[in-house]
């Protein structure tokens, strides 16, 4: 552990001496990626500990949101109100990594430039199927069908084509293909992991023993 720290210190030395320090180095890296970057990878690249990098990213996030911080690096997260105008972009932790997004306030302006990713809205059937897969993953089409009471084959195919779900192996017993939600789904939802999905329980009144019945064969 101590040896690792030494190595890290060597790495961090030159970064800290650069204008803007480690925070600016992180920004520079975030500028060239086209997908969320994991904290661990950022830590490795800038040569700092994961915790330190996590704190710096949170500090950057707050800065973009308009909380001024004149201190360099390792800035304590204060509960002070926003004192500066927020930037036109924000830093967010999604799908297990960090990524820069335009701020929603400017959606109407940005959308005139970015046609990419402007996808058609999902149908009700697609949304419901996606919901079942996201909450019951990995899950077979048969089981999704049973829950939804209709055949879901074509909807599953189009969700896969849109990159929102993917195959994830086969069921050991039945050999049926299992499906799970993708990283892209998390990105589109703006959440970090499937665990951040809203709780299902409040929507299921009085069904504490749900597990039992849902595993029964239909």
């Amino acid at each position, binding site marked *: 552990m101590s040896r690792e720290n030494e190595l890290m210190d060597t790495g961090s030395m030159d970064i800290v001496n650069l204008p803007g320090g480690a925070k600016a180095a992180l920004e520079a890296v975030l500028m060239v990626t086209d997908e969320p970057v994991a904290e661990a990878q950022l830590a490795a690249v800038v040569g700092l500990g994961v915790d330190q990098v996590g704190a710096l990213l949170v500090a950057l996030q707050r800065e973009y949101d308009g909380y001024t911080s004149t201190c360099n690096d390792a800035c304590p997260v204060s509960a002070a109100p926003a004192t500066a105008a927020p930037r036109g972009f924000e830093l967010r932790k999604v799908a297990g990594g960090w990524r*820069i997004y335009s701020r929603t306030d400017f959606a109407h302006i940005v959308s005139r430039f970015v046609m990419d990713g402007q996808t058609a809205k999902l149908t009700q059937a697609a*949304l*419901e199927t996606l919901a*079942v897969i996201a909450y019951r993953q990995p899950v077979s*089409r048969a089981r999704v069908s049973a829950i939804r*009471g209709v055949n879901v*084959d074509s909807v599953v195919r189009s969700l896969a084509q849109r990159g929102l779900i993917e195959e994830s192996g086969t069921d050991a017993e*039945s050999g049926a293909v299992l499906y799970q939600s993708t990283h892209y789904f998390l990105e*589109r939802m703006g959440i970090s992991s499937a665990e951040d999905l809203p709780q299902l329980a409040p929507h299921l009144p009085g069904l504490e023993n749900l597990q039992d019945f849902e595993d029964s064969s*239909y």
Partner: protein
Amino acid sequence: MAARPKPAESAGFEVRLENFSGPFDLLLGLISKHEMDITDVALAQVTDEFIGYLRRLREAGADWALDEASEFVVLAATLLELKAARLLPAGEAENDDDLALLETRDLLFARLLQYKAFKEIAAIIGDRLESEAERFPRLTALEPHFAALLPELLWRHTPEKFAALARAALTPRVPAPTAVGLGHLHAPTVDVKEQSEIIAAMLAVGHAMSFRVLIADAATTLVVVARFLALLDMFRDAVVAFEQAGPLGELQVHWTGAFAYKELDSESGMDRE
């Protein structure tokens, strides 16, 4: 039984059928429409409304009336089952049969509630996706001097190998049909394909045979059913033709296909030579 008077004829079938995607959807719609407990839903009334709705659809030239009708049969069965279970006294179960019915009732309600829960969640997910679509991620291409740092690509594909890859990638991926659980069936399975071979062999003698003759040696009803299904398959494949003198008359089957039926079986890998 109905808590409210029947809606005016002009109102039509009020459950928004164009949006419904299955029996549960319709069931939920019905329950909320009639604002009543499931036991109070008059199945006959709902059926009347539905049939009237279907008739109007057909008159309007909607060709999906049949789909709707078949979905409704599933719904009606679910509803009936639900009602039967629901009408039981909710008190202590007297015996195992009562218990089983109560469990059935609970199971159906649980499934319906689960479906409702997922509908609510789907709405949340839909809203979330929509509001998130207002944020745009930075999606930049690497600047040329950084892109140049990418390690030189390893390429070991000959044109032939690459073509094989393309062939695989371009071959349509036919998804396996959704598996239907057969755990509840205890009867030995009868293979329809096998039955069609038996029929083909019988018809190979050259003259027409009645369906009665074709099933004369069937040991069980299941075999009769399988032979009938096999005939439908063969009719579809245009290797047999039917003839019937009048309603309920004897069904005559002719062989109209090529000489050997086994040719059609080539895909199953069977070779009887």
